[in-house]
């Protein structure tokens, strides 16, 4: 079954639009209406219902000065621009006079300053294009002795340097899209002359898809784990039949295609995607390849879970999801056997399935050509995910051999609570928006809102880092305190579930009490706001000796819980760095 073409889908939606999930202001230095159906259809495909408002063409400067006047009060703004539209005369001058370049670069810097001004006044998603290589007679790298390429490079670099200074800017790389698509296939001279609209329909589709990916990535979660078949998926041939020397993997095609595919898998792993294996094989045969084949890029340690046996892959995938504590909708399954793909698609419809292409030359880019792993920022915690899973497995092995108390002591847990600085905000925003279970109030906030709170004198945003002798959990807890007279209200309190039950809760509350004192408060007040998923923290406050007073739970800072003796705790607040060594039995 094929999806309806984008224009039909968009037109049908426009006849009966729903309540918009997202409003998007569009502006360009040229006519951009052909973008609407392509961007609209892409977002509809991601279950987002958009509503567009388009600024008249050539109104970019006006938009920067007063965006509400130009496109209304929207959630997102998209700006596309070209040097040959914005600065036509100064660009043309650079072809004739060597000293004309600085004037062009000045204008570009001024335009960049307008974009920063817009950023300061507009808190939503801001997407701005790079300038594409100009489409202008005479402006050609083919014209002999033309300075076109130097002029373009200087202009593009100036723009990039200025944009790097703008906060939370999403860049639409129009130049990269133009290269990918091919400038000749992207431009339509007729439409430019008739309508001030430079591009072909297929290029508009490419632009619409790319903008859609940026917008959708802000609203949806990327896939977390790839479950891989082995034979004819990460190497060529069947290990059980062809043996270690007979499988295809290495420098020469087809082995090269499999090796390059493995390299891209490693790239995804470095961005935080976990890799797992589901293969119908004898485990000894399969592990021999991991352990002994010279050309294997993937190592055993890169894989978070192996399901190698002759049972159903549906069950294998379910077990991997359970082990990693992730949803089936966060899994991508790759296999060369259409029957396996079909069975998984039928029985686990939320798993994304990809079939190894018939043309093996296309295998290395199989995953790169999808939007399944789109993510706008990669945090340190993402990068370390596979190592953390391995550390977890080590911990569980040790836990089985020791008593609970000895196990806790053996971990050598370190808990560091600190006032959030700029570099922590991305991760804290991620936690605030995705933590469901250990989350007392489940208040979701944008990074902008959290940054404002962290700058306020009457609030404090705290992060918690945890590590133990097996590894670093990273930033796994966050809290927001708001000063309310002599009481500090716990606006937000959340933690990753992987660190519970080892004294982290008591320690965090003890440090919150110390932070409250630094705000000039003598008590903490917490609230539990029930949701469908946070039942586990229903009794957290009474359990930690907070007293119910009808308006939440109150605890005098002097009555704060003691930090358990097995924990090496520290607290870093901006004005007064206090090393908290106030431990049980030592106070």
């Amino acid at each position, binding site marked *: 079954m094929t999806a309806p073409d984008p224009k039909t889908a968009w*037109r049908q939606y426009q006849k009966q639009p729903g309540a918009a999930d997202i409003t998007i202001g569009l502006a360009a230095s040229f006519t951009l209406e*052909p973008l609407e159906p392509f961007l609209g259809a892409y977002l509809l495909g991601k279950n987002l219902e958009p509503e567009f408002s388009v600024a008249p063409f050539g109104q970019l400067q006006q938009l920067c000065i007063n965006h509400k006047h130009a496109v209304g009060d929207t959630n997102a703004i998209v700006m596309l621009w070209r040097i040959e539209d914005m600065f036509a005369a100064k660009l043309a001058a650079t072809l004739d006079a060597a000293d004309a370049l600085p004037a062009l670069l000045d204008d570009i810097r001024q335009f960049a300053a307008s974009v920063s001004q817009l950023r300061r006044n507009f808190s939503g998603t801001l997407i701005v294009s790079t300038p594409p290589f100009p489409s202008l007679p005479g402006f050609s790298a083919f014209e002999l002795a033309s300075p076109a390429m130097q002029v373009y490079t200087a202009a593009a670099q100036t723009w990039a340097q200025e944009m790097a200074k703008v906060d939370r800017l999403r860049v639409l790389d129009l130049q990269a899209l133009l290269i990918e698509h091919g400038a000749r296939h992207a431009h339509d001279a*007729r*439409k430019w002359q*008739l309508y001030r*609209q430079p591009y072909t*329909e297929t290029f508009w589709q490419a632009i619409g898809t790319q903008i859609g990916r940026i917008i959708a990535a802000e609203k949806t979660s990327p896939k977390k784990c790839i479950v891989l078949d082995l034979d004819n998926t990460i190497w060529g041939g069947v290990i059980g039949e062809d043996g270690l020397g007979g499988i295809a993997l290495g420098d020469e095609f087809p082995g090269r295609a499999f090796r390059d595919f493995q390299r891209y898998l490693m790239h995804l792993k470095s961005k935080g995607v976990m890799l797992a294996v589901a293969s119908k094989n004898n485990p000894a045969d399969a592990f021999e390849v991991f352990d002994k084949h010279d050309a294997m890029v993937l190592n055993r340690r890169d894989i978070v879970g192996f399901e190698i046996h002759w049972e159903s892959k549906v069950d294998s995938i379910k077990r991997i999801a359970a082990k990693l504590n992730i949803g089936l909708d966060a899994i991508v399954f790759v296999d060369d056997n259409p029957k396996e793909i079909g069975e998984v698609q039928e029985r686990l419809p939320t798993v994304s399935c990809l079939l190894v292409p018939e043309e093996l030359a296309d295998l290395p880019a199989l995953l790169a050509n999808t939007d399944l792993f789109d993510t706008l920022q990669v945090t340190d915690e993402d990068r370390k995910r596979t190592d953390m899973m391995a550390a977890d497995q080590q911990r569980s092995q040790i836990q089985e051999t020791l008593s609970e108390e000895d196990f806790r002591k053996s971990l050598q847990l370190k808990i560091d609570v600190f006032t959030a600085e700029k570099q922590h905000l991305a991760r804290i925003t991620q936690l605030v928006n995705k933590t469901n279970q250990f989350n007392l109030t489940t208040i979701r906030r944008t990074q902008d809102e959290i940054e404002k709170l962290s700058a306020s004198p009457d609030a404090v945003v705290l992060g918690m880092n945890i590590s133990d002798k097996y590894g670093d959990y990273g930033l796994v807890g966050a809290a927001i305190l708001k000063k309310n007279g002599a009481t500090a209200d716990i606006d937000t309190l959340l933690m990753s579930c992987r660190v519970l039950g080892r004294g982290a809760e008591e320690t965090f509350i003890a440090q919150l009490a110390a932070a409250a004192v630094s705000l000039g408060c003598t008590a903490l007040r917490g609230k539990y706001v029930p949701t469908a998923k946070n039942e586990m923290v229903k009794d957290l406050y009474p359990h930690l000796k907070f007293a119910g007073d009808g308006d939440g739970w109150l605890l005098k800072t002097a009555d704060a819980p003691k930090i358990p003796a097995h924990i090496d705790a520290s607290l870093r607040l901006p004005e007064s760095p206090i090393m908290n060594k106030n431990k049980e039995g030592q106070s």
Partner: protein
Amino acid sequence: MADTLIELFADVLQVEPAALNDNSSPDSVRQWDSLAAMHLVAAIEDKFKIQLSTKEIMKMSSIGLARKTLQDKNVKV
């Protein structure tokens, strides 16, 4: 049988096919503005797998004239 060209214009202009005939033009159809003209060209080129020259596009100032222009290019409309 419904007229393919009328249906295409109705779809892009978002009006009922019954409201259009070969005499319809930007002067008689409110929705037929310059943006709509641009969308019409894209829709015609998509539908009939042809490419129009600027001269041909300029000639299409009514549905009837669009029909004639397309017929001159051997498109059956």
